[in-house]
């Protein structure tokens, strides 16, 4: 009984401070509302997030071609991509699972495609470290992806 009375008493004393505390916490979180221009600005950001990067291959078929094209030897026979190109290559390698999943590859093909990722990363790490990369590893991985892409193409043709 003593506890119940005490609870009731303190509850009555606290109820107004709760409202104040709640208002302060919520204003802190939301910034007390937003203007129309803020909302419009955010909307642009939302759409910009979903914009497709220019160097992202459209589909799995384009993937091996893009990887091959963006890492080739220059006139002197050396492999020296710019920092920007290296970053783009890393991103393309990172998209392998997504592009493979967004194709008709079955599980075994998907796993083969994903297993090429560390090989590409190894070559890119060598380039980043200033060493001469093992292009045989890169090319073999590209070939694997190309085989999968060809297989997909022939399956699609057979179905038609």
């Amino acid at each position, binding site marked *: 009984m003593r506890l119940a009375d005490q609870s009731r008493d303190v509850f009555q004393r606290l109820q107004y401070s*709760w409202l104040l505390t709640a208002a302060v916490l919520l204003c802190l979180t939301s910034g007390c509302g937003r203007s129309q221009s803020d909302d419009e600005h955010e909307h642009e950001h939302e759409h910009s997030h979903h914009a497709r990067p220019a160097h992202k291959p459209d589909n799995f078929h384009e993937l091996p071609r893009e990887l091959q094209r963006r890492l080739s030897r220059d006139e002197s026979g050396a492999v020296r991509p710019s920092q920007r190109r290296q970053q783009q290559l890393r991103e393309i390698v990172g998209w392998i699972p997504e592009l493979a999943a967004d194709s008709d590859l079955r599980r075994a093909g998907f796993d083969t495609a994903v297993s090429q990722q560390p090989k590409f990363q190894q070559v890119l790490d060598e380039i980043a470290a200033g060493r001469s990369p093992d292009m045989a590893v890169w090319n073999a991985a590209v070939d694997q992806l190309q085989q999968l892409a060809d297989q997909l193409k022939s399956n699609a043709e057979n179905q038609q």
Partner: protein
Amino acid sequence: MAAEMVSGFAFRFLISIVEAAPFLLAGLITAAVLRRFFGVAGTRRLFGEGTRWGLFRAWLIGMLLPVCSLGVIPVIRELRRAGVRGGTILAFAVSGPLFNPLSLLYGLTLSEPMAIVLFGLSSLVIVTAAGIIWDWCFPQSALPAPEEETYGIGSRRMLAVAAAAARESCGASLVWVLTGLSGVGLAGAFLPPNSLQHTFNHDNPWAPLLMTGLAIPVYATPMLAMTQLGMMFQHANSVGAAFVLLILGAGMNFGLLGWSMAEYGFRRGLAWLLLISGIALGLALILDKPLFPQDIEPSDHTHAFDIYCRPFDSVPDVVAAFQQRLERDVSPWEWRPLFVIGGLACLGLGLRLADRRERFEAWLRQSRTVSTPGRFDIVIPGPVLGLLSLAGLIGLSISGCYAWYPAPADCLVAMTDARIGALSAALAMDHEETKYWSERYDDWTRKMEVGTWLRYGSLPLYHRWKTRLVREQLEMLEHEVDGGDREAVQKLVTAISKSQRRMSEAYREEL
């Protein structure tokens, strides 16, 4: 505007009380089991009172019991009555709501498993550190233990449990539960629609602090907090903010704070809040960078917190919109636990009005003359029954996982309506409908992932990606419908249909 704010408060309040009902019921049963089966001495022993294991036990029991931050209120009131130390009670109050088997499974499958394990261990650090400091600062916080009550065996003991739960359901616990729900109601009234989409981005250094401001007033069930955590990881939002959301969003609310201040005094209650928030924030800052997902492109927004904002904006008829959303957001079966609590509260009210002096309980305590027990009659001690009851509650929540997360084939069938709804609404360029059905479609893909993990012991990357693609395309679809780009919408509808076919084949044929 005023009508929208009032209806926003009422809507969020009502939705939350429906979500809380099963956990509240579990809390009421747990409190009654502690009082009648364990008794004062048994409860103190269970929570390690007088030993150095009190805080750890409070954390462990809290992690196992299926209660939320509102369902924990009747339990901590019972612990207080039994004379358990303040630090132990407050540690249980915070850790109890953080995880349950359902939410843990969801988190391990759909968030970063390592992050969830670390979050769980960090919660132990928080409640232990805060509990030790609080007990050191405020010793002698326990009430004197009341006299032990012994009940007769058999049906009398069972009736005593029911009576305890009924009385509690319409007592002080109810007041504190309603106080706890006021926070989420106020957020629904005052936060402008969609105003939290960018607040917790990974590049916002204030995200964990801002999350503290949101997480303390609002109420989140363990499952909701885990869902939001999953979405934050999916969008690569601030990991620190995600951690604060788990600890304070699921573990704290105005009702708990109010109770601690009423029981221990304003200063001690505030000290508890500052201790928990301070340690949680510190750990959030430590975990923020190391646990940041490396394989996900950070998004500049999330929809995870739209549900805390005002639900109605510029609607011509607020009452009709309120009714429509309520019918859609709450399935008929979700009302049932609330009806059970309502029935229990009516029973409790009847008992309180008709029997203020607890003569019914006194009658139950009278020892019955028992004839010589039969050969196979075994009198089971109360604490054993209590342990069995708590184990049953835990077992029920574990077996409930199989019902909540159906087999992949069942999920694929169940998501059909949501898929058709989302794609049809998108083609009609109806944003509200697209958003509504997309969320349900998205939810079924997540349930399918957890259901797969539960039944097959793992979720291969191949399957993970198949569901992730559908979800990402759904999110883009919603944005394109909102932006009014009909051509992009048509392309996405085709893409989603294709991804759905591949996902279906993967989950049906290649598991």
